[in-house]
């Protein structure tokens, strides 16, 4: 294998129901930065059935070129047809880097591909950079439940592959109307790749909020004491136009649903404002929210680790402070509107 043959950064575009997952746009943004340092281009790899309408969006968010495989066997997602396509594309186009979102699809597909191509794969990265000397990819990820960070290299194998946590990388400035080359790849899928069959698809019917897209989050932890007390967080969030999130302790206690959990085993968030109420701040939690622009923490324990990342730490009882705060904010907002 000659390294010079392997060029370009490929991003696996995750689309479901003809909608591109946000993490794919984030990856295109990051790939654009990396491509500058590697002096190469960003190629979006779009797999699915009747998906070519998505190409303009990919160009807008940073793809320099798009490879499309359009085949009915790619809907809905199952592992083998996707792995077959990625393997075909890697063998024929020889990318230096392939990035996937660390989603329920990416974390299934990427390992299967890595074992087929026999290359390295770094999971759930939170930072990607180009080594200034070797031009290799430096992939940094949390390990040990978020207690330590490890920087991983893939020195002697190509492509270098990574899955990247959703919500961590920033999207590029959108360039509407940008046109880039689109190439349809004839992978020649057959029914032999249909090794499993999807007999039913059940979507979550609740209108669950996506805490990753919320600009303001009011999060509660063990210090909220009981599920009823999350109501006061909801009220505070409503005044601010935000959403409610929670620590693992509150989820494990059964007070709130897991889909609003922030942290290593939950979601990574970076809102403009994060108000942590009664959250002590286990390292696993901090890993999921410390990139927030402004962090306000309310906790009774002056030595709680949450204060290590808070811009403003208030030592006090969240159960008493939050209702006061909601009332005062209502007044302040009303006063502003009256002007």
């Amino acid at each position, binding site marked *: 294998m000659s390294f010079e043959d392997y060029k370009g950064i490929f991003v696996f575009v995750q689309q479901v129901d003809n909608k591109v997952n946000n993490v794919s746009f984030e990856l295109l943004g990051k790939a654009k930065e990396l491509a500058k340092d590697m002096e190469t281009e960003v190629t979006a790899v779009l797999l699915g059935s009747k998906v070519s309408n998505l190409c303009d969006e990919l160009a807008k968010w940073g793809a320099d070129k798009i490879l499309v495989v359009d085949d009915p066997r790619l809907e809905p997602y199952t592992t083998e047809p996707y792995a077959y396509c990625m393997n075909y594309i890697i063998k024929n186009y020889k990318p230096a880097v392939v990035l996937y979102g660390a989603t329920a699809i990416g974390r299934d597909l990427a390992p299967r591909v890595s074992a087929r191509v026999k290359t390295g794969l770094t999971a759930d990265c939170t930072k990607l950079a180009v080594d200034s000397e070797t031009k290799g990819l430096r992939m940094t990820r949390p390990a040990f439940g978020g207690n330590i*960070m490890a920087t991983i290299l893939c020195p002697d194998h190509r492509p270098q592959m990574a899955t990247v946590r959703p919500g961590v990388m920033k999207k590029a400035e959108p360039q509407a109307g940008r046109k880039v080359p689109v190439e349809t790849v004839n992978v020649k899928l057959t029914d032999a790749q249909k090794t499993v*069959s999807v*007999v039913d698809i059940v979507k979550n019917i609740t209108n669950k909020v996506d805490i990753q897209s919320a600009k303001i989050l009011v999060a509660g932890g063990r210090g909220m004491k009981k599920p009823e007390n999350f109501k006061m967080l909801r009220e505070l969030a409503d005044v601010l136009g935000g959403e409610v999130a929670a620590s693992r302790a509150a989820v494990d206690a059964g007070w709130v649903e897991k889909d609003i959990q922030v942290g290593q085993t939950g979601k990574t968030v970076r809102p403009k404002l994060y108000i942590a109420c009664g959250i002590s701040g286990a390292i696993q939690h901090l890993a999921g929210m410390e990139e927030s622009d*402004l962090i306000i923490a309310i906790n009774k324990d002056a030595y709680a680790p949450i204060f290590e990342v808070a811009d403003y730490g208030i030592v006090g009882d969240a159960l008493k402070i939050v209702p006061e705060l909601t009332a005062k904010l209502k007044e302040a907002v009303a006063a502003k509107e009256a002007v």
Partner: protein
Amino acid sequence: MNIVVCVKQVPNTNEVKLDPKTGTLIREGVPSIMNPDDKAGLEAALELKDNTGAHITVVSMGPPQADAVLREAMAMGADDAYLVTDRAFCGADTLATSTTIAAALKKIGKTMKIDLIITGRQAIDGDTAQVGPQIAEHLGIPNVSYAQDIKVDGDTVTVKRQFEDRYHVVKAKMPCLVTALGDMNKPRYMTPGGIFDAYRENEVKQITRKDLDVEDTQIGLKGSPTRVAQSFPKQLKGKGTIVTPDGADAAADYIVARLEEKFII
């Protein structure tokens, strides 16, 4: 039906603490446990055994002390246990690990037909979720990840496969590999009789380097495409201002003032 469940012994990362002075991990006194997702996978296998009858083999790759999780699995109801252990396997990343485990499963597969392989989705020390799908790739069988439920009917396994916003009901012909989510069930406790048998009667069979049909370049550090260049304690962004206001009223005033300063309200 023969089911193989892959289990890993892991440090309980929930109990890992950082030394506040040096910022390094305090490893002493951190208990080792059976990885939670793997334990859920074992419970799913035990339920299949309860309902339809199955022979359950547990397999773990690790140092000699990983024997403990295999005994625990037998005390819960597994029938057979193999420890895949050798210094030659040390330093393996996920690719070399999955190659080693797949080779061990091929070896076990010579003595019995393996119908279903269950692994946990991911281990709490590495959180990669890679080894399950990679084992399936090496064995050339389908995999279904993120199982919320596993049912078997004849030669077909039906899996409730979880995604972020939906689940798929997926059917696959066995042999097949399924990765289990930790919250799919509540694993049973070991039984007193089971504990007695696991430690007094049953044996944990060992599989070492010489038992496996693999090249030296495929296992251990040599077989690992990835390298850890550096590891470091997580750097936190640093403390801001901490205040202890006199009462909830003053605290609320303080926060409102900060939010006004930052133009959030």
